[in-house]
């Protein structure tokens, strides 16, 4: 078991490094030097050369990468932003928690809605809740999160003046305001996965309900509560946990759009801004964070599936 874990970790590390290296190379393959963007399009060649030398951009790509990697691994130094001149590490410390919070709140919202919805639909098939789920699951995966965001901002913030339209008040200014600001973006980020997971939950529960061991549990006179918790849900939720972990990973992608809509100061918004301004170091750092998070969540999904499933783990 330990050997297996180690092998997976090694593989994950290789993947992360490869992605990081590929992005590094691709960024530097673009003809437009960041010098031009920072100093202006009509900067003199001498100025450009000086800029490049100052930031080490004239060295061979492999060496540049080695320098960068060394800085990251030994000092957590991701370099400085070409645009703001500030340390990228500082920028990340500010923005990464915001995105992580957004995703965590999204997933919580998703599970709190999707799982009961799916379970109850399976328990009362073809009932009104079941029909509602079928409609919701199609609408939920077809509605673009960012459009939903715009509409919700329109309805709630502008019309009803309820929820603040964007930007994230820090926790120390009040937990309630902080959470309120996250609810709309989290909902928009979560809706696709809520629709999907509620449908999967329904399927999974229906499948388990038809299993022989549930009939055995009933025939043994076990209480309904125990049958639902230990015999039905314990089995039905196994795939759902894995899917939820993977969904968290994919949320990092959509967070780029959602953070833009709601103007949340997360790493995904920084990534987008950095892409436009060719701020390589921020792009590099953000991609690294997202890749690590994604790969870790995939591993978590895999591990969860194995651990929860005695047939595989023992």
């Amino acid at each position, binding site marked *: 078991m330990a050997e297996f874990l180690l092998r997976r970790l090694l593989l994950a590390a290789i*993947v*992360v490094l*490869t*992605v990081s290296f590929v*992005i590094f190379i*691709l*960024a530097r*393959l*673009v003809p*437009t030097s960041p010098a031009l963007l920072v100093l202006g399009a009509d900067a003199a060649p001498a100025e450009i050369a000086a800029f490049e030398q100052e930031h080490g951009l004239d060295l061979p790509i492999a060496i540049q990468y080695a320098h960068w990697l060394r800085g990251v691994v030994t000092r957590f130094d991701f370099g400085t932003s070409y645009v703001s001149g500030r340390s990228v590490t500082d920028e990340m410390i500010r923005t990464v928690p915001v995105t992580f919070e957004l995703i965590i709140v999204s997933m919580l919202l998703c599970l709190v809605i999707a799982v009961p919805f799916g379970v109850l639909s399976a328990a009362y098939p073809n009932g009104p809740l079941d029909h509602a789920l079928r409609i919701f699951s*199609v*609408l939920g*995966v*077809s*509605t*673009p999160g*960012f*459009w*939903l965001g*715009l*509409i919700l*901002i*329109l309805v709630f913030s*502008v019309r009803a003046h309820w929820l603040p*339209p964007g930007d994230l008040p820090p926790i120390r200014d009040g937990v309630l305001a902080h959470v309120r600001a996250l609810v709309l973006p989290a909902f928009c980020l979560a809706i696709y996965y809520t629709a*999907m997971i509620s*449908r*999967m939950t329904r*399927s999974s529960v229906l499948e388990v309900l038809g299993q022989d061991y549930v009939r055995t549990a009933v025939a043994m006179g076990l209480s309904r509560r125990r049958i639902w918790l230990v015999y039905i849900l314990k089995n039905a939720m196994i795939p759902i946990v894995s899917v939820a972990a*993977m*969904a968290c*990973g*994919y*949320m*990092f*992608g*959509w967070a*780029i*759009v959602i953070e*833009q*809509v709601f103007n949340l100061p997360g790493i995904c918004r920084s*990534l*987008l801004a950095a*892409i*436009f301004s060719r701020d390589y170091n921020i*792009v590099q750092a953000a*991609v690294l964070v*997202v*890749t690590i998070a*994604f*790969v870790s969540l*995939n591993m978590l999904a895999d591990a969860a599936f194995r651990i929860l499933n005695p047939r595989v783990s023992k």
Partner: protein
Amino acid sequence: MKRQAIFARLGQYSSGVAGLVLLGAMVLVALLAPFAAPSDPLALDLASKLLPPSSDHLLGTDQAGRDLLSRIIWGARESLLIAFGSVFFGTLFGVSLGLIAGYKQGTVIENVITRVFDLFFSIPMLVLAIALIGIIGTGSISLGPLTIDDQAKLIGLIAFSFTPALGRITYAAALVESRSDYVRAKRSQGASPLELVVLEILPNSIPPVIVQATLFIGVAVIVEASLSFIGLGVQPPTPSWGTMLADARNYIFSGEWWIALFPGLAICLTVVGINLIGDAMRDMLDPRAGVRSGFI
């Protein structure tokens, strides 16, 4: 009794039929855009800017006075072209790679292809697409004699993002098929690899791919809209539902709700149609496939 049976069958697939109708309407509108649109989507008319829906402009006008309905109709063209195009190419490449990998088991090629797929599964597709566009740049690019405009670029990029997923599905099916007794027998009879792959393995590997590809069309619409929304997709002034929503963002606070509502509604209806079709296809071709409507 027979008529009842037919209706029962149709009823089973009624949602699929509804989806077909929705999508069909959108495609028709897109194809007939020059005739269907009441006015020129690019015509600026600042005098009539930001007008709410009325009998003159059924869905209102945007900030440059352009009729929203016309822009949405022409936008349908963009979005559907990019969506269908990207899924087409993604399926083409994905299926090809998957078949090769599945047929040539145990070889270096199989290893390389599957490892590359695995690599691409390590990043969320959207991040990959955004990073690549960010690097390549928006707008047309010229590679020597060839000019690739931004639509073709988008098609290529999104197709590229779909290839691993479709490839993996094909690969899994091809693995099973190429080990089947029937294929082995034919191979020993001297059938050429191409014959085997195209005539025997491919037809049996296709159904799950078709289902996933159909659902990916809907994904492609949303991805294109999202990319255009953040400015990395279709470039203005070409009408696209995503860019219209980007513009709308500036106007929701001043109350011009129609610019935000209608383009998004168009996206919704189109994707709902596609998903209904995809679900119906899944029921027909691959009923026990589980509910993965495609991880994006």
